[in-house]
């Protein structure tokens, strides 16, 4: 996990270092870009990690973006190699995580199309468009190579998009009342994207066909704006927090650095009052970045400590309860951290019930209940999973759960803190 995080932020640092003339601003921006995905998110998660975002869904957008920035500033010979590398990365990004992979693939394709159109190489535009299908097919082939080797079966597209279908449940039709419209970071994010696009589209328009470096810079900006747009759109899958911009807000730091560079270019071109205004703009942006990075440095050293919060008391208590009451080594755990508990108990095997954090639909709860009913083994359920089962959809599974436990299991043994319930099969008595 450390290595993935290192690669992720290393890529962000590379992007910032490449685009900044003033390297200290690159360093300050790096610190600022760490604030949101690390400190802010750990606090937002109640002193925990959101591994599905950091580094899981951050790594490929960051690495591919670093490759794109490198492509824009490299020689023609190197460009071919980086182009192929980006396509390979796209393939693996789709394999790694479908949503972010698709966004990266479409984003890089848009980048290459605009780039080659700008350089009047329309042939490459079509090749780049075709590469989307090559990337998709490539990742599908790699996935099937894995499953064929291991299980001698091909995967269905349906199975691959299972997660996306789940997240998308009600996603497109999610309505919210007008009273909840407020000036939030959500709208500001749109403004950032739009203002960046405005400048970039204008500069690309003015510099089309000239094949200069300035225009290339703005193509990168279009790409970054697209990436924010795409990643935020996918973040909407998390429909419980439709206005949560935490997954993409670190990109705003990169956008702000791009603005600093735009201002720098304008300072060189203009004179008088206008030049002063660009100075104001530049240092205003630098001040904002500095404030975020200052906040980051002042708080980052507390991060590790806060993440250990309550572990000393929680772990021995939980593990002690499970181990002292379990009658066989094979026990089903329905807990928010059951995989970790299996590890602590020295078992590499996970439970057969899907992790309860991922119970988004009634169908999944239904499957868990069926599983418990079929499996002839004891189970431990924590208050989180218990609450989900008994309250989901106005308690429609509560009765099923209670009937099943009364029929097959002894009355539960409840832990001292009330967090855990252990249900033993009746045959033991």
């Amino acid at each position: 996990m450390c290595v993935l995080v290192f690669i992720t932020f290393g890529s962000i640092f590379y992007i910032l270092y490449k685009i900044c003339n003033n390297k200290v601003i690159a360093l300050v921006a790096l610190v600022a870009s760490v604030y949101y995905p690390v400190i802010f998110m750990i606090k937002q998660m109640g002193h925990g990690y959101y591994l599905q975002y950091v580094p899981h869904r951050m790594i490929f957008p960051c690495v591919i973006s670093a490759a794109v920035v490198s492509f824009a500033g490299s020689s023609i010979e190197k460009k071919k190699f980086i182009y192929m590398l980006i396509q390979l990365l796209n393939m693996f990004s789709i394999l790694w995580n479908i949503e972010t992979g698709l966004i990266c693939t479409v984003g890089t394709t848009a980048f290459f199309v605009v780039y080659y159109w700008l350089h009047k190489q329309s042939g490459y535009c079509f090749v780049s468009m075709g590469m989307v299908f090559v990337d998709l097919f490539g990742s599908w082939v790699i996935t099937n190579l894995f499953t064929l080797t291991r299980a001698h079966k091909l995967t269905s597209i349906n199975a691959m998009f299972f997660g996306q279908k789940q997240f998308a449940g009600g996603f497109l039709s999610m309505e919210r009342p007008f009273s909840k419209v407020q000036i939030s970071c959500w709208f500001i994010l749109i403004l950032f994207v739009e203002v960046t696009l405005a400048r970039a589209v204008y500069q690309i328009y003015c510099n089309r066909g000239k094949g200069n470096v300035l225009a290339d810079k703005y193509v990168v900006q279009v790409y970054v704006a697209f990436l924010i747009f795409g990643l935020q759109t996918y973040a909407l899958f998390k429909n419980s927090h439709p206005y949560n911009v935490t997954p993409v807000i670190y990109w705003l730091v990169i956008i702000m650095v791009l603005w600093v560079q735009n201002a720098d270019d304008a300072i060189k071109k203009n004179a008088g009052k206008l030049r002063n205004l660009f100075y104001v703009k530049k240092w205003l942006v630098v001040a904002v970045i500095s404030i975020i990075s200052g906040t980051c440095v002042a708080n980052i050293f507390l991060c590790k400590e806060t993440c250990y919060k309550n572990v000393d008391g929680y772990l021995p208590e939980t593990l002690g309860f499970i181990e002292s009451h379990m009658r066989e080594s094979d026990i089903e755990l329905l807990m928010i951290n059951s995989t970790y508990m299996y590890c602590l108990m020295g078992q590499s095997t996970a439970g057969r019930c899907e992790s309860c954090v991922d119970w988004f639909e009634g169908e999944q709860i239904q499957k868990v209940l069926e599983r418990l009913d079929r499996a002839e083994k004891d189970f431990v359920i924590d208050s989180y999973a218990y609450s989900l089962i008994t309250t989901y959809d106005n308690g429609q599974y509560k009765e099923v759960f209670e009937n099943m436990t009364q029929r097959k299991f002894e009355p539960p043994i409840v832990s001292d803190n009330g967090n855990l319930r252990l249900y033993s099969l009746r045959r033991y008595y």
Partner: protein
Amino acid sequence: MHKKIEVNLQTVSLFAICVSIVPIACIRYVFWEYVTAVVLFLIIMLVMLWGGEKTGIVKIKDTGFLSEAVYIIVIIAGFVSFYYTDVYDGTGIVRGSYFISDIANRKSIIWALAFCIMACIVSKFHIKIINLAVVFCGLGFIMYVASIFYTENIAAYDLHYDAYFYPVCRMMDGENSYIDFHNIYGGMVFFWHHFYMAVVKILFETFRE
């Protein structure tokens, strides 16, 4: 012959922003309002740029004293909006701000000032050793950030650890993602489980401690 109307780029973008934000107030479907806003904005910009030139009616220019106002407004609004980022929990109730509480201490302000002054001073010089020092400091900082994600720390009581490692453990158990069980986080498990198989003993020992 009609006279060309010269329009400032920022005026155009401000107009496009205002028009594109209308869907946010009107559509009320979270996904569509966002997508419509950005797509509408792009269409307006492109129509103004290309259409203006083709018809010869509008000419868009980039510079102007007020032109940067839009950028400055967005920067300030963006900065102020951080106040809202962590307070919106889906119910619309303002509960507090981590950012404001983080920034409201002397250390944060001192660091911010130090960074700003450092950036200002260094902008006057172009010395290679500064670039080298920046790379060194940057990599050191990233290493520290990475160390926060050391597996032992993550494995603490954590809501999302389980979801993330659940498919990995199923794969380690000999089952197959997309075949035997549903996996919503993608094919990363095809790589991950090999790695975990290799280090699993070390991990168990670490956890046990």
